[in-house]
């Protein structure tokens, strides 16, 4: 029962990630695209934990998810620093 619930939640999150990817591809400005990719990373983090529960290896997937969160945060922060110095193209 819990596996079916997790599959439904994962499908909803995949749909939301596709909507964010639309904004990431066709966004009017550059910063819209960065925010879109960051939002896709948020959804991916939850999907990684869901996969850990479905494969019954949550002790392994939680480390991957933690590293993914840190990389996502650092990437967005570096892009913000770059565009602060260079200006939006």
């Amino acid at each position, binding site marked *: 029962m819990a596996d079916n619930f997790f599959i439904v939640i994962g499908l*909803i999150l995949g749909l939301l990630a596709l909507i964010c990817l*639309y904004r990431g591809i066709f966004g009017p400005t550059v910063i819209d695209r960065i925010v879109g990719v*960051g939002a896709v990373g948020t959804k991916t983090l939850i999907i990684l934990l869901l996969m850990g529960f479905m494969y019954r290896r949550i002790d392994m997937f*939680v480390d991957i998810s933690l590293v993914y969160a840190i990389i996502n945060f650092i990437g967005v*922060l570096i*892009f913000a620093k770059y565009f602060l110095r260079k200006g*939006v193209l």
Partner: protein
Amino acid sequence: MSFVLLIVAIVFILIGIFFLTAGTIGFLRFPDFYSRMHATGKSDTLGLVLCLTGFALYNLHLGISFASVLVSIKILFIAVFWFFGNPTATHALTRAAFKSGILPWTKDGRTVIEWPPK
């Protein structure tokens, strides 16, 4: 006890999914960069923290031992990190956009602030 934990975890996850859906719809439909940041920066943070709290409770429902408590603490650590990290990233991006001259959207097209600021 285990059944109560399962019900509480599922309620947390469903409320988190609701907030993530609301934030994504706002991110798709709002007209301006700043209003899109307003939609996605706050509700994505709240939705992810609620979802991860639900996952930690679900992991405790599977069986309480030293390893599972450690994994739950790790999941809560991701939630706390994201709770501090995502508003910081949102603030940095919005500051970069404002400094590089993206003006806020208004209904009649006139700007409400002057650029560059004095």
